[in-house]
Structures are given as C-alpha cells and as structure tokens.
C-alpha cells in the first residue's frame, strides 16, 4: 500500500519578482526549494509509515510535476526518508493551470497502484492557490480533508483528522483512500540524514511523460488550462504613515481632515 506525497518545486523567496512585460515570475538567480508547506506533507508521510508499518506494509512515494530540474526536489524528499520518487515531466505539460495540473497528476497517480492517502501541502508558496490538492481529489472522485493539523487515527480504510478552522478545528472522519492537505501545525519536518542523502543521490527516479499516461492531449498544458491570467503585478509599495507627536496634535488633525477630504471620503 502506498502513501503518496505531491510536492512542488518553488523559488526560494517570499519576495517574488514579476516581469511586468510577460507577467511571469523572474526565476533567474533564485534558488529552487521544495514548497515549504509540502515539507510538512513529506514529514507526515514518513510518520504515518512509521506509525502503520507494524500492521500494514507501506511504501512512501513522492511525485511532482515540473521541469527536469524538479528532480532535485524529489531527491531532497528521498534524503528525508521517502522510499520512491516519480517525476511527471513533458513539454506538453508546460503552462498548466491548477485544473490541467490536477488532471495530469491524477492520471499519473492512477498508474502508481493502490494507495491509502495522497498528501499535499495546503498550498504552494508561489501560486498560493491551494487548488491542486482538492482538484486531484475531485478528478479521482475520492474524499478530501483540507488544512489538516493533526491525523488522530489512521487505519486501513479510515482516517480521522483535525481540520484547522479560523476559530478552532473540526474533527473529520473519512473513508480511505482520501486526499489530505496539511498545515504547518501538523509537525516539524526532519532534516535529512547522511545515509538518506547518500541513498537519494543514487536512487533511480521514475519518469512519466504524456505518452505514459492515459490523457487527452488537448487537456494538457496551456491548451488545457481554462484559467487565463490577464494581469500579474507587484503590489505598489505602501507609503509609510506619518506620526505626529502630542505637541503636534493640531497639525495632525488638520492633516487627517485634509487627506480624507482629498480622497473624497467626506
């Protein structure tokens, strides 16, 4: 039985810059990392295996869709203790939106054999959509529990998990297989070990292209993506506020009244 983790390689920066002419991310000079939320998913997969391995034989598997260089993200996951890695990569997948990505991933996952659960980070730090996990669940027509902060119970055919809500949390039980997306409260990801790194270096990574999966080609990549990005822009930098001291009270009040008048608020 497999526990599958879907990960994404993202630029290592919270200060993502955008090319204003092409509306695409500027990737030059930015190091690539595993999406930080996916690190929690990887850790949880390893912990679930440790928890379950006495009763069920578990193989953990990490899968990503991306360019060939995304292999380094897979090797990092292997160095932490994941058993196998799969790279879904093809020029035909380029430009996929969340729909086309979840469709492609779904078809790739269907080729991997039986699985108990598919784990995702709650969202990727570059696109921030939080849609691919739920999208895969919909395409596979299996249940999903999003924003999971704790897996209370997991057996061969059932899971009970806590879903983080704005105020408190829900306790949800679901049959398996299911899709789980996790939040950072769920665990603290481990560092790789030296033996893990050595193993990851030598490990063979399975590659899946559009020819290996049962897909309609017109539903792949940019052509298969119903989302059209009309415009991406860096938000304008916020002007710093003005601080008036106590003795400047009158000036301050004048400034406030003047400003809100100018903005036609009053």
């Amino acid at each position: 039985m497999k526990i599958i983790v879907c990960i994404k390689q993202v630029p290592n920066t919270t200060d993502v810059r955008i090319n204003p002419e092409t509306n695409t991310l500027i990737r030059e000079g930015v190091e690539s990392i595993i999406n930080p939320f996916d690190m929690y998913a990887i850790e949880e997969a390893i912990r679930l295996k440790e928890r379950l391995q006495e009763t069920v034989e578990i193989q953990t598997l990490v899968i990503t869709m991306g360019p060939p260089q995304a292999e380094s993200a897979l090797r990092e996951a292997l160095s932490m203790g994941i058993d196998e890695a799969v790279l879904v990569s093809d020029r035909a997948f380029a430009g996929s939106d969340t729909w086309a990505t979840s469709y492609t991933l779904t078809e790739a996952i269907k080729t991997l054999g039986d699985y108990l659960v598919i784990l995702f980070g709650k969202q990727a730090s570059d696109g921030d959509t939080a849609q691919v996990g739920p999208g895969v669940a919909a395409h596979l027509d299996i249940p999903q529990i999003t924003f999971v902060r704790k897996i209370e119970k997991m057996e061969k055919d059932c899971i009970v998990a806590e879903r983080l809500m704005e105020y408190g949390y829900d306790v949800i039980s679901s049959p398996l297989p299911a899709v789980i997306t996790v939040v950072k409260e769920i665990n603290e990801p481990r560092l790789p070990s030296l033996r893990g790194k050595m193993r990851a270096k030598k490990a063979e990574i399975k590659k899946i292209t559009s020819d290996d999966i049962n897909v309609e080609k017109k539903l792949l990549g940019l052509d298969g993506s119903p989302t059209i990005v009309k415009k991406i822009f860096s938000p304008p930098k916020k002007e710093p506020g003005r601080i008036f001291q106590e003795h400047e009270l009158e000036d301050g009040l004048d400034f406030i009244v003047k400003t809100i008048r100018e903005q036609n608020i009053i």
Partner: protein
Amino acid sequence: MNYFLTEEQEMMIDLARQIAQEKIKPVREHYDETEEFPWPLIEDLAKSDLCGVYIPEEYGGLGDGVFNLVLVVEELCKVDGGIALALAASALGTFPILIAGTEEQKKKYLPSIASGKKLVAFGLTEADAGSDATAMKTTAIKEGDHYILNGTKCFITNAGEAEIYTVFANTNPSRGARGISCFILEKGMPGFDFGKKEKKMGIRASSTRELIFNNVKVPKENLIGKEGRGLIIAQGTLDASRPGVAAQGLGIAAGALEEAVAYARGRVQFGQPISSFQAIQHMMADMATEIEAARCLLYQTARTMDANPGKRTTKESAMAKLYCSEVAMRVTTDAVQIYGGYGYMREYPVEKMMRDAKITTLYEGTSQIQRNEIALSLIKESASKKK
C-alpha cells in the same frame, strides 16, 4: 581553496551546515546564557548520522576516520563551538575503545555511540594531574573478577550526560606511569557519581563536571588493553583527538571571520562602510590567510593519520592543534576588534566566539604542552638519524 573532498564528505559538510544554520544558530545564545545541556540538538545530530562519521562501518559508523570528524566539527563550530563539543568530546572518549578495545568491547559500545544514542566522556584529568597525567591518584585495585576504583577526576566534558566513560586509573601505583590502566565505566554503576558542574568562561552549553569513584566495582572485561598500558592508550587517544580540538578552533575562527566581514561591510563610519578602510581590510586579510593556513595543516594531518592507521602522529597532531587553536584566539580577538564596542556586547555573536575559542588553547594539552610534544619529536627524529 580546493581540498579535493569526496562527494560523501561534501554531503557531510552540507548536512552539518544545515543543522548549524537551521537548528543551532537560533538557540546558541540561549544555551550559552542558561548553560543547559543541549539535548534536543544532540538528538538532531544523532538522527543526522553525523555522530558516527569517524567510526568504521562494521560498528555502525559511516567512515574512515579522523578527517570526517574534523570536517563535521569545523562546520558545526562555525556557528557554535560549545554545542558541537558534545560530539567532539564523545569522539575523544571513544578513541581508547577504537584504538585498544577488544572486538567484544567494540561490538558492545561502538554501535550506540555511532548512532548518537549514547555520548561518551574521557576521564584522564585530575585536580593535581593536568599537564602531568602521571600524577593521577585514582586507583583501580584488582579483586577477583573486578577492579575497585577510587578517586576523583575533574574538568570532564560530557560528564553526567554521557552513558559511557573511558577512565584512567592506577592499577599499580608503585610503577608510576607504567601502572596506569584504562577502563570502560557506565553511568549508573554503584559508587560512580558526578561532582559539581563547573561555571565556565566559554563553551557553556557543554557539561564539565567531576567524576567521583567510591569503591566502584568494574568487571575485568572492561579493562581496555593490558594493565599498565593506560598511558600509551591515552597518548594515542590524544594524537587522534587533537585534530578534533583543532577543528573546533578552526571552525570558531572561520565563523568569526564571516561575521566580522559581514559586519564591516554594513557598519558605516565617516560616511563609508568600515570595510573600505585599509586598517580593517588588512586585519581581515590576515585573519583569512591564517585560517586557510590552519586548515591546510589540519586537513593534511587528518589525512595522514587516516592513511597510516596505527602509526604515531604525535608531532603533526600537536602542530595542527597548536596552530589552529592559536589562530582561533587571534582571529576571534580581531573579530571583536572589528566590531568595536558592539563586539564586546553579548547581543553580538563574536564575544562568545572569543570566549569559546580560548578553551582550544587549553584542553587536551595546553599550547605549551603541544610545543613540548613537537620539540620532543624533533629531538627524537634527529637522534634516530644515522650519522
């Protein structure tokens, strides 16, 4: 500088750097202030497999020797010289078993040391037996299948925290230095206790305590090597372990230089970064040159040792320890100088580096003892040359 490291060694360094940056750096000040023993970090190191890099594979380790230990200790010490000491001191305590232990002793103790589950401490020093180890008063008297140990060791790193202790005691006081023997003790043996925890200038995350033996009954299987061979084992151990202290000094120095250069680039005085002043530039240049020279000496020493197992390397080992520790003291002092008044404040990392560096010129033989060893080797080499 290209040191022609293997891919495996590069991985060790990467991993040590990641642990140092992600796990140790955020809490180094905490452990320095509180003097708590950093168990959570030791557990991180254990999980990383780095505790066994110098232990042979057949005993659960990863490698072939001192050079690996040097690389890991250096990298960890760039961020904190006190926390990594638990690992380096454990190696010091392990070397007697590696050098002179029986197959049974190796099989029994090394795997749990390699996996990081157990720490080790080395018990040689006594209050009146520092540089002169032969003056030790701890005795081990044979009674049937056991030795009965009595006495007190002091300044023992990892004491109280370690599970395994390699301890030196005199089995035949009438024979002086030739009466010293080496034993493996385990925490919890009746009569084996720990004394006060020392309050130190630096390396405050490490535990330094007394070992107190009050009629401790040690099975004769725990004797390492033969009776009376203890001092030779201790000397061999120090030959093997001094590169670890050198690596600690080198790492602290390299870490201090990195901090100092970054600070000098950002600190503006007289309208420009202080890194643009030649007075600062020359200090940085000297620091970097000395560090690189120290590294060359240390790496080559460690490689020589690994390539010639069983051969005494007292001179080279002492040279590496002497030079690296003296460089550590000079470089960290200059790093504080570059920081100016801020460098003296505990809020900034370099004052701690200077405090941590000092110990490397003192323990496992002071700088003066290293010079004695080097000079003695020179004289012996000269005397043994055919005229």
